[in-house]
């Protein structure tokens, strides 16, 4: 089953800490978003494998945009 990982807040994608095919555990830091000059790490909602990365570094994201799709 696929699990979408959503942006918890609007901001800019500062870095992506995973690659397609990586095995990820719940609470791993997957993406870092910068908002209001503050780095906010986004953590994986569950264990899984990275199936698709929908954003790249420097992208602006809105709240609830899909960042990464995990297959669980």
């Amino acid at each position, binding site marked *: 089953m696929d699990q979408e990982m959503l942006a918890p807040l609007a901001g800019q994608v500062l870095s992506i800490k995973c690659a397609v095919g990586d095995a990820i555990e719940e*609470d791993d830091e997957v993406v870092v978003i910068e908002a209001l000059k503050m780095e906010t790490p986004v953590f994986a909602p569950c264990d899984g494998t990275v199936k698709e990365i929908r954003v790249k570094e420097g992208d602006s994201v809105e709240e609830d945009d899909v960042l990464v799709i995990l297959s669980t």
Partner: protein
Amino acid sequence: MIDGLHSLLFQSGFLHMTLGMLVMWVIAFVLIYLAIAKEFEPLLLLPIGFGILLANLPLSDLMEPGQGLLWRFYHHGIQWEVIPPLIFLGLGALTDFRPMLANPRLIFLGAAAQGGVYVTFFVAHAAGMSLDQAASIGIIGGADGPTTIYLTSKLAPELLGSAAVAAYSYMALVPIIQPPIMKGLTTKAERVIRMKKGRKPSNLEVILFPLAATIVVVLLVPPAAALISMLMLGNLFREAKVVERLTKASQNELLNIVTIFLGLPVGATMNADTFLRPQAISIFLLGLVAFAVSTACGVLLAKGMNLVSKDKINPLIGAAGVSAVPMSARVVHKVGSEADKKNYLLMYAMGPNVAGVIGTVIAAGVFLTLLR
């Protein structure tokens, strides 16, 4: 020849230095050091520190009424009330009120966090300050530099330097002062509360907001007009999206230019004779009380609202009701994520934070209404 050397020596400043001036040099160097080495509100404390040094070099006419360079900056910029409203124009162009419009009930937190302003007003007056001075000290609790300078220059100009330095210092110390109060007043169960998503304000709403806020606030407290009107004009530039050049100029060039002319003369009002009094210490202490009480009032009102509301508010965001934007919102986010790292409070905290700016302006307007 000897006579000539003699008079040159007497006309130099060296023989006119006093101990008080040396103490002020130390204060100036400490502020300059904090600004450069610790990046402690450097945009303000660097020019303020330099202004303090200049004001304590004897025999210069920099602050001489009617002729000195810094006096002119002070008189035409601050006494004429030009600079703080222009700062607000820039802040308005930088501020996104959407987080507040998304959760309108959070406005109350921005109002509650002015509690410290009023409490400290009474405390300072009871401690022997005049009403005008007490109001200028209380407003420090709003943690809003330009509003503090605006109000103090009108009510108690003799306190301007100390009140401004206190306000900017506490803004820089937000991450140290606020967390213990926030943690002390909340339980872990409250700190992990996740906020319900707000609605999405429409574009029409964000354009109407600055217009409506101007009308309501100016009708309610006319003396707040200079600050609130400029704040909202800047915001209207931003949200109208058709005057990008004006928005950019307000946010960048204009804001940067007036910032230079704000800090320098404020520092220059702090000469040894007016600053080195026990009063300066009480201003710093009372300012700290004001700021701490404001933080507590915001958190406590959020807890109170949870008693009657079924969508629970994370009470930490009440602390963001002071107007230190966005430092307080960041602190709320940090303290919240210590309790639950997947709780993202930043944008929710921006709601009370931007409401707090308006709240502090209204508090200043109330003082001006009552005392003038």
